[in-house]
């Protein structure tokens, strides 16, 4: 058991670090939620891709390096430590791509992934609707059969970056079934098609990070159905873990933020204020725990074939306490019963395991930024100036317990699937 990096990983880390030192913007790009900033972020994706660093975990044929989960974690650590720009393509890279690897046709992969890897096509997700937040099965937008394809109609909302993105993906109702999540189909569509109207929505910080998408008989060819018609719910759920797990919020993001918080504390903290010192320590400990748990996952035999497909199955047996608790048996012997592994309810262990991570990182992110604001004292409310990034980070962190399935939903999932609580 060791935490030392082998030569290959160390070499990769050095390459990434050097490349970023030479190429990463010295000052932050304009906000990705402005027209100018979006363009600059897209250009940055192309630059990353030219160095084959935009999608390191993907197979080479699509622009990646076939990197292991460990390599990807290393890339992310370096990327965030270098304050690399927001990944404008993240919804495509981290949510759609894993789904394409699992459920797409070879034709779809070849057509879509390379352009996603270079930023030529930026994807927006179209999950929520005005009456559909956490309750995804309540979707009302619909698709009607048309010659050679489908006509999409309805309204989607909270679609991050849809204002300037090229294409969208989401579920639409193609049939009515016995259960609410029957008859949903997974569509890929162009945001430039006739019939599409996008309305920006200003976020708490005043920027147009969200959008509403209105669809009025938008034609989508059959080639842009992902999986079988009516199978959308299963497909979306099979990759729900990616949306909230490691791939969405890599440990490197929090390790870098925690390191910066320690710096802030050294610079601006009152050494006598142990209350704040404790919170700084806790933020670092939390970031470290999140990182270590990812390294545990990356040490699994299956983690080599990562391919950007999200979190591999968690480590078997003892490395996961949930197995113990799922058996629900006092101190009885089942807590080490290997047989429990993978015997989760619908949705399975990996997805439920990602719920653990989602609650953890979102609360860590909030606590970390809240601590920074407390450290800043009267400067905490400033929306401009050298330390205003902490306020922006705090506002962003506030959304963490909400998106990708509220933390309330995640806790219920954890209790039911990992601890065996009755519904």
């Amino acid at each position, binding site marked *: *058991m*060791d*935490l*030392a*990096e*082998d030569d290959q*990983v160390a070499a990769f880390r050095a390459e990434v670090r050097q490349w970023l030192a030479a190429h990463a913007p010295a000052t932050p790009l304009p906000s990705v939620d402005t027209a100018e900033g979006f363009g600059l972020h897209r250009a940055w994706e192309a630059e990353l891709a030219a160095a084959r660093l935009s999608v390191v975990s993907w197979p080479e044929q699509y622009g990646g390096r076939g990197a292991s989960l*460990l390599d990807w974690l290393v890339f992310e650590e370096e990327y965030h430590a270098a304050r690399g720009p927001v990944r404008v393509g993240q919804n495509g890279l981290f949510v759609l791509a894993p789904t394409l690897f699992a459920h797409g046709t070879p034709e779809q992969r070849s057509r879509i992934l390379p352009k996603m890897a270079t930023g030529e096509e930026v994807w927006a997700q179209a999950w929520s609707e005005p009456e559909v937040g956490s309750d995804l099965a309540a979707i009302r937008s619909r698709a009607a059969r048309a010659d050679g394809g489908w006509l999409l109609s309805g309204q989607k909302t909270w679609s991050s970056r849809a204002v300037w993105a090229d294409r969208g993906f989401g579920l639409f109702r193609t049939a009515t079934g016995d259960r609410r999540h029957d008859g949903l189909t997974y569509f890929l569509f162009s945001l430039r098609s006739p019939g599409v109207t996008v309305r920006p929505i200003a976020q708490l910080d005043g920027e147009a990070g969200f959008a509403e998408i209105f669809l009025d008989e938008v034609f989508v060819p059959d080639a842009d159905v992902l999986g079988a018609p009516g199978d959308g719910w299963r497909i979306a759920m099979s990759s729900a873990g990616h949306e909230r797990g490691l791939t969405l919020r890599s440990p490197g993001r929090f390790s870098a933020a925690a390191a910066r918080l*320690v710096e802030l*504390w*050294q610079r601006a903290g009152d050494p006598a204020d*142990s209350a704040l*010192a*404790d919170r*700084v*320590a*806790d933020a*670092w*400990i939390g970031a*470290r*725990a*999140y990182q*270590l*748990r990812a*390294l*545990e996952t*990356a*040490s699994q035999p299956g983690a080599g074939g990562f391919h950007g497909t999200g979190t591999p199955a968690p*480590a078997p047996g*003892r*490395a*996961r*306490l*949930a197995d*113990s*608790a799922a058996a*629900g*048996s*006092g*101190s*009885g*012997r089942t*807590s*080490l019963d290997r047989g429990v592994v993978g015997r989760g309810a619908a949705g399975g262990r990996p997805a439920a395991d990602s719920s*653990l991570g989602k*609650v*953890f990182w979102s609360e860590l992110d909030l606590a970390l930024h809240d601590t920074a604001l407390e450290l800043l004292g009267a400067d905490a409310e400033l929306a401009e100036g050298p330390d205003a990034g902490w306020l922006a980070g705090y506002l962003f962190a506030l959304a963490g317990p909400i998106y990708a399935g509220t933390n*309330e939903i*995640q*806790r*219920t999932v*954890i*209790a*039911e699937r*990992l*601890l*065996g*609580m*009755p*519904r």
Partner: protein
Amino acid sequence: MSFVLAAEQLQFAEALHDQLAAADVPAVARQWAAGDRKRGQALWYSLAEAGVAALAVPQRWDGLGAHPADLVIACEELGHHAMPGPIAESLAAVPTLLAVLAGTDEPAADERIAGWLRQLAAGDLIATIAWPPLLPYAADAQLAGLVLVAGPDWVKLAEPGPGLRSVQAGRSLSIVTGKELLAHGAAAAIQQAFEFGVLAGAAQLLGAGRALLDCATAHAVQRTQFGSPIGSFQAVKHQLANVLIALEFGRPLLLAAAVALADDPAGAARDVSAAKVACTDAARLAARVALQVHGAIGYTAEHDLSLWLTLVRAVGPAWGSQRWHRARVLAALAGGS
């Protein structure tokens, strides 16, 4: 890098768990608390036969010289089963200290120390230690065959004062008086022993936290109120989920601390303290939630839950406060490590 337990380690954990489950530790702990330590001491011997007492003893003194992760596995399982006795002291801190003091010469510079190590490994000796002011009391000195006290850079044989009752029934704490000097110039050895004691205590707490969660989930499924199992209520589900999250993210810190102690004992302070902070917090949350989920049933001394509730309250404050360990993490970080 390989940050998972090896197959043998998983087997060791499983075997230990089976052994403890078969031994009915809660019943043993109750007899122990009532002053009858026969079954407890027999169990201690049989654990020693399984290698538990020899983990931190070097091979040259008949020990196993095991990886600190093995110690974590053992102490976590002992906490999981509420095993009584001076676990962090006798299985981790004292053997680590004596192992450094014994040195690598053959025969040992001090044959007594080598002898104690051999006895510890065999389970023939239970030891305890105090290190004021951080560890002001020696735990369970009344039943220890070897009582030590350490200062900044010295170690003495010690005579324990009367045992003060702990919240954990059967556990006692003694102020000790240093007698014969055993070693001086031993600051590094003492520090290393302390780190191993902290690690073992953190592992015990994580194990206790797991047991508390096990009990609470079992109860939540079985207990019915308002016509439904209480585990079907969101308020119960979400509290239990929070406990699982805290335990799940405490465990990797514990194993990383073990790795740090194996690879760089002198630089391990940060990781050992981080593990202690997280495991103590997780165990306390588990205790709080487990009691709340059980209601009055959990508040009785008759219910086994009380064994873990009081264990967490007893071991939690030992081996340095949360504040002390958080400050040590930050000092290590701010020092640029």
